[in-house]
C-alpha cells in the first residue's frame, strides 16, 4: 500500500465518523444551535475547546517554528496556554452565570448600549474571518501534499465537510465532532513524537526525552548537543533567545490576553450546564491543550537534531546529494526545501552563516518528521488526518461565531427584533453557509498577509474585548461611556501600529523604530493598557451606571441561580 492509499483510507474513515456524529446530534432550536442546549459535560467541553483552539497552525506550524526559534519559541507556548488561567479565573464562570449566547450580548447588556454591542459584533466577525481563512488554506495544503489533488479541490472538499456538520448541527454537532477530532489529532501528534523520542533518547515520554541524554552512547544531553551544534553552525545557542526581553514579555502577554478575549474561545463556556462546570471545563481544556503544547517543544528539538544530522552528516562535512534520503527530494518537489550547491562539492550543508546551502520551510517539520524518522506509512497518513482534523475543528468553531454574530447579535438584537426562534435558526444556517463560501474563497485566493493577520486578531482581541469584559465584571462603576471610549482607543491604537508596520511601511519594521522596542506582535498588550486607562478616566467624569446594571453585576458574581443559557 502506498502513502496515498493509506491517507485516503484514514482520512476517509475520519470523515465518515464526523458526518455520522453530525446526523446523530443535529440541532432543533437556536439554543441547541448556539450553545448546544447548555448540556455538554465539562470534560467533553474541555476536549472540544482544545480541538477548537488548536488550529492547523498549532498542529502543523508550531513545532517547526519553535525548532527554528529555540528559546524564543516559548512565547507561543506560554502565550497560547497562559490565557486559559485568565479565562478560568476571571472570565468564564461570570460569563456563564450571565447566561446569554455571545460576547456582544454581554457587552451590549452590561453597557446598556447598542453602540457597544455593534462595536463588539464588528470585532467578533472580523477576528473570526481572518482566522478561518488560514484554516481553509491549511486543509488545502494537507490535501495537496498527501493526496496529490490540487489545493482548490482540497479546499472544496474541506468546505463540504464543514458545511455539512456546522450548518446541520450548529454548536451541538460541532462540539461532539470536535471531541472526535481532538482524539484524532492528539493521537496523530503523539505517535510520531513517541517513536522519535524512543529512537533518540530511549524515553517513551517525549517530555522526559527532551531533557535526557542522547541514545548514541555519547552521554551528552540532547539540549547540550543541540546548543553545541547550533553554535558550530553559526546560529545562536538553541536555549538562548535573540529577541529582547521586553519584546518577549509583551508578545507573550498579547497572546495570553488575546486568547482570553477571542470570541470563539469564550463562547465555549456558555455550553456547559453550571457555573462550576465552566470553571473546571477551562481546566480540562488546558489539560488537553497542554498534552500537545508540552510535546511540541520536545518534538521541535528532536526534529532539529535529526535534520541537522541528516543533512550535514555525522562528521558535519555535508551529505552527498545523491545519497540524500527520499524525503529531501519529496519535499524539494513542493518547493519547501531547496538546495543550492554554492561550493560545488556535491554535498548539502545547512548552517546559519555564509556556508549555508539549504532553504528549509518551517512548516514541513511536523509533516516531514515521520518520513525523516522513517516511520511506517500508516503513521504518515495519520499525521495528514490529524492536520485536517485540527483545521476543520477550528474552522467550524469560528463559523459558528460568525453565524451567531449575524443571526443573533445583528438581526435579532439589532435589525429584526421580532423574528421567531425558527426564523432566527434559519438565518443562522444561512449565515453559516455564506461564511463557509467566503472562507473557502479566501482559502483558495489567500490574501498575501494571512500570517500577519493572525497577530492582528490577537492584538485586536486583547486591546478591545479583554478590558471591556474584565471591567464589566470587576468594576460596578464602569459605564458605557468609559467602555466604548476604552474599546475604541485600544483598538485604534493597536490597529494603527500594526497596519503601519505590516502594510504601509514594512521596510521600517525593525527594532530601532519600534515604540519602546515592542514589535507589532506584542503591541496589543500596550493597546490593552491604553484601553484600561482611558476607560477608567472617562468613567470617572461621566454619569454613574444605572441601578439595574449594578444589580446585574452583583448577580453574576456568585453562582447561585444560574439557569440554562437563554435568549431573554
Amino acid at each position: 500500500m502506498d502513502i496515498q492509499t493509506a491517507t485516503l483510507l484514514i482520512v476517509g474513515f475520519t470523515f465518515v465518523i464526523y458526518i455520522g456524529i453530525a446526523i446523530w446530534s443535529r440541532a432543533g432550536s437556536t439554543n441547541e444551535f448556539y450553545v448546544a442546549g447548555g448540556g455538554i459535560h465539562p470534560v467533553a467541553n474541555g476536549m472540544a475547546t482544545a480541538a477548537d483552539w488548536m488550529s492547523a497552525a498549532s498542529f502543523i506550524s508550531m513545532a517547526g517554528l519553535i525548532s527554528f526559534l529555540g528559546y524564543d519559541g516559548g512565547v507561543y507556548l506560554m502565550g497560547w496556554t497562559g490565557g486559559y488561567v485568565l479565562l478560568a479565573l476571571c472570565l468564564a464562570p461570570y460569563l456563564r452565570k450571565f447566561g446569554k449566547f455571545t460576547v456582544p450580548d454581554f457587552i451590549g447588556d452590561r453597557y446598556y448600549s447598542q453602540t457597544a454591542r455593534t462595536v463588539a459584533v464588528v470585532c467578533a466577525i472580523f477576528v473570526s474571518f481572518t482566522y478561518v481563512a488560514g484554516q481553509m488554506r491549511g486543509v488545502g495544503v494537507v490535501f495537496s501534499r498527501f493526496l496529490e489533488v490540487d489545493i482548490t479541490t482540497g479546499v472544496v472538499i474541506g468546505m463540504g465537510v464543514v458545511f455539512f456538520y456546522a450548518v446541520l448541527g450548529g454548536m451541538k454537532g460541532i462540539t461532539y465532532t470536535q471531541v472526535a477530532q481532538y482524539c484524532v489529532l492528539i493521537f496523530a501528534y503523539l505517535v510520531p513524537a513517541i517513536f522519535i523520542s524512543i529512537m533518540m533518547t530511549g524515553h517513551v515520554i517525549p517530555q522526559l526525552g527532551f531533557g535526557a541524554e542522547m541514545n548514541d552512547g555519547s552521554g551528552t544531553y540532547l539540549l547540550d548537543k543541540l546548543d553545541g551544534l547550533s553554535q558550530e553552525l553559526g546560529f545562536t545557542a538553541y536555549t538562548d533567545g535573540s529577541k529582547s526581553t521586553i519584546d518577549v514579555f509583551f508578545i507573550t502577554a498579547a497572546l495570553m490576553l488575546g486568547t482570553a478575549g477571542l470570541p470563539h474561545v469564550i463562547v465555549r463556556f456558555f455550553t456547559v450546564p453550571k457555573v462550576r462546570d465552566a470553571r473546571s471545563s477551562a481546566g480540562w481544556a488546558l489539560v488537553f491543550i497542554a498534552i500537545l503544547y508540552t510535546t511540541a517543544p520536545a518534538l521541535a528539538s528532536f526534529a532539529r537534531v535529526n535534520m541537522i544530522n541528516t543533512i550535514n552528516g555525522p562528521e558535519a562535512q555535508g551529505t552527498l546529494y545523491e545519497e540524500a534520503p527520499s524525503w529531501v527530494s519529496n519535499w524539494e518537489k513542493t518547493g519547501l526545501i531547496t538546495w543550492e550547491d554554492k561550493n560545488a562539492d556535491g554535498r548539502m550543508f545547512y548552517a546559519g552563516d555564509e556556508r549555508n546551502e539549504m532553504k528549509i520551510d518551517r512548516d514541513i517539520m511536523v509533516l516531514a518528521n515521520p518520513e525523516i524518522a522513517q516511520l511506517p506509512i500508516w503513521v504518515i497518513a495519520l499525521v495528514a488526518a490529524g492536520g485536517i482534523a485540527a483545521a476543520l475543528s477550528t474552522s467550524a468553531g469560528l463559523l459558528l461565531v460568525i453565524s451567531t454574530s449575524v443571526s443573533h447579535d445583528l438581526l435579532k438584537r439589532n435589525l429584526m427584533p421580532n423574528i421567531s426562534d425558527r426564523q432566527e435558526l434559519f438565518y443562522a444556517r444561512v449565515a453559516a453557509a455564506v461564511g463557509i463560501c467566503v472562507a473557502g474563497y479566501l482559502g483558495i485566493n489567500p490574501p498575501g498577509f494571512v500570517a500577519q493577520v493572525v497577530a492582528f486578531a490577537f492584538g485586536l482581541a486583547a486591546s478591545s474585548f479583554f478590558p471591556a469584559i474584565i471591567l464589566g465584571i470587576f468594576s460596578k462603576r464602569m459605564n458605557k461611556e468609559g467602555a466604548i471610549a476604552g474599546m475604541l482607543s485600544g483598538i485604534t491604537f493597536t490597529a494603527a501600529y500594526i497596519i503601519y508596520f505590516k502594510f504601509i511601511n514594512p521596510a521600517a519594521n525593525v527594532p530601532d523604530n519600534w515604540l519602546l522596542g515592542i514589535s507589532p506582535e506584542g503591541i496589543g498588550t500596550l493597546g490593552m493598557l491604553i484601553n484600561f486607562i482611558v476607560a477608567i478616566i472617562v468613567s470617572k467624569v461621566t454619569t454613574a451606571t444605572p441601578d439595574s446594571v449594578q444589580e446585574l453585576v452583583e448577580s453574576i458574581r456568585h453562582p447561585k441561580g444560574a439557569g440554562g443559557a437563554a435568549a431573554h
Partner: protein
Amino acid sequence: MAFESKEKAAAYWRANIRLMLSLLAVWFVVSYGFGILLVDWLDQVRFFGFKLGFWFSQQGSIFTFVVLIFVYVARMNKLDRDFGVQEDDS
C-alpha cells in the same frame, strides 16, 4: 437575594478576589518571572538535561497553569458551599 446579608456578599467577593489574585501571582511568577525576566539567572541551574529557565519557559509554566486552574476550581467550590451560594443539583 442569594446571600443572608450585604456583609456576607461582600465577604464572599473579598475571599474570591483574594484567591484569584494569589493564584494570578503564581501565574505571573512562573511565566513572566521564571520564563522571561529571570531566565538568564535561572539558566545557571541545571534541571536534568535542561537549563532551569528554559524548562520553565517551554514546560514548567504550562504544567503550573494546569495545576492553578484545578486549585481554583476546588477552592471556589468550597467557598460557594461555605457561603451557601452553590448551584442546586437539578
